[in-house]
């Protein structure tokens, strides 16, 4: 079986996000990058599928600048067989729609039985790309899976997914796209052996031309939404911190909540 895993290289969740006035993106100075946490669940699931089913070929795919190869290198160290970097200066200004178009083009013809992505990338928080890739490849998508079982012989998968306050068990004929949610598994860390092996594996780079994308489908031109402004919201909090015996602080708090904040 062939499995593709979509991984995005994003700022570490610990990063303090700063935006220079007038800029439309974050200040990248000193920011460390990681694989988006939900994509780690996707990658782990691919590894688990291989452990369960045996013959599973895993391809990690990322769209981003050259440095996104770090994310792919990590996937190779974890056990991906090969990796594709979709990269082109023309993608500057791309939104989730353009990203999905390009990733779909990179996946097309690859005969993947499963395409695994994260439920959302923790930078743009769009929760869009996995679903849009499915649409562009005319595949079904099951979002937010917390359990995935593949029946190789039948060519089907059964997944559990969360909805609002309930969950569903769903069966789908492969190929299909799945987006991973916390609870699916516990991602492992790369082992030293894997890291050594990964250095020898090749990462293929595909640019816009190789993907057959027209210039008006790329970057800001192809994007459906345009970032006009980015800023760090300032939220002035009251910061009234009470100390003392609960017999005094508790009534004081409740009074403030009722009379000052008016939330009771």
């Amino acid at each position, binding site marked *: 079986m062939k499995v593709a895993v979509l991984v995005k290289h994003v*700022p570490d*969740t*610990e990063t*303090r*996000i700063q*935006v220079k006035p007038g800029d*439309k993106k*974050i200040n990248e100075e000193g920011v460390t990058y990681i694989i988006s946490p939900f994509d780690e669940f996707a990658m782990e699931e691919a590894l688990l599928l291989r452990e369960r089913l045996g013959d599973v070929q895993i391809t990690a795919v990322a769209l981003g600048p050259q440095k996104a190869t770090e994310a792919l290198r990590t996937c190779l160290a974890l056990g991906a067989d090969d990796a594709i970097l979709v990269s082109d200066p023309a993608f500057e200004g791309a939104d989730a*729609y353009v990203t*999905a178009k390009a990733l779909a083009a990179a996946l097309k013809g690859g005969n993947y039985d499963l395409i695994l992505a994260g439920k959302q990338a*923790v930078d*743009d*928080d*769009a*929760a*869009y790309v996995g*679903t*849009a890739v*499915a649409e562009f490849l*005319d595949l*079904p998508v*099951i*979002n937010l899976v917390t359990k995935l079982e593949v029946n190789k012989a039948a060519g089907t998968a059964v997944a559990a997914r969360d*909805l*609002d*306050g*309930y*969950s*569903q*068990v*769903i*069966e789908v*004929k492969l190929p299909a796209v799945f987006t991973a949610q*916390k609870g699916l598994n516990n991602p492992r860390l790369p082992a030293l052996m894997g890291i050594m092996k990964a250095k020898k594996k090749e990462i293929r780079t595909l640019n816009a031309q190789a993907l057959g994308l027209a210039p008006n489908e790329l970057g800001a031109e192809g*994007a*459906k*939404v*345009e*970032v*006009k402004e*980015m*800023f*760090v*919201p300032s*939220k002035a*909090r*009251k*910061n009234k*911190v*009470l*100390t003392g015996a*609960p*017999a005094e602080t*508790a009534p004081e*708090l*409740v009074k403030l909540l*009722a009379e000052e*904040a008016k*939330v*009771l």
Partner: protein
Amino acid sequence: MAKDIWAFIEARDGKPRKISLEAIGKAKELAGARGVKLGAVVIGADAGAAAAEVAKYGPDVVYAAEDAKLKDYSTEPYARVLGDLVKEHSPAVVVFGVSILAKDLAARLAARLGASLAGDVVGLEGDGELVATRPVYAGKAQTKVGFKGEPVFLTIRPNVFPAATPDGKTAEVVKVSPKFEDKDFRVQVKETIIPKKERVDVLEADIIVSGGRGMKAPENYAIIEKLADQLGAAVGASRAAVDAGWRPYSDQVGQTGKVVGPNLYVACGISGAIQHLVGMSSSKVIVAINKDPDAPIFKVCDYGIVGDLFEVVPAVTEEVRKRKG
């Protein structure tokens, strides 16, 4: 002719959900500013009942797509129905209230139609050019985005925009007969699991009381639940509490849990790690109860009490009970 503004309505037990009334509220405002009609769409196996209810909240027309095949939510049949309606009537904007279902549906259909999608919208300027404000980097930053082309799909965050209220009129309900294609049913729902739950979900709640590692043991959540009962609140948890197995994952607030924005968020025994803060920092009022005066949560709270939560929380519960009479 100027194009209509629509709201997508999610119904449960024949009634529109609160987030959907907020979607109508926002859509109504936009339609009013532009002097265009307001439409609402209800899809489901019992859409008719909810449509009759929605008709009272100010739309000019309600489209009700009722079909037994729509009983269980599945992305593609719903996308087919809404997509066909959008193609037929070409609304300028469709407003959805954020939910897992709505985000799933809006994403699939936006990709299909090439619609411009902005998710988790927390601000909207709509009298001239449409500009939406949405959080990125888990709320550590926000962007203002403009749109290229129509339709525009917006999913709006709960508890940000006011819900519509009945306006004394009743709109016309137009019944729609869905036309499906075979491939809409590539996915089959085998089973629906509804957990036993008496309490409101953190995403729907106006007030949330959360407990973290400071709770020390699962049975101690009884004191959080008592306060939540007094306040009519949902119970939330930090990841530390969820990872310890004290609370279900569905209660987790934060980067890898739910992003909430209630009127009041009470954090008990939670230190205030950045991944927790991004999940609740848009709450209107934040209260922290922690025994460590240097806990980072105190830097981002409106009101705090330094003290042992096992004494403070019951005392607060008692005060609330007294005040509510």
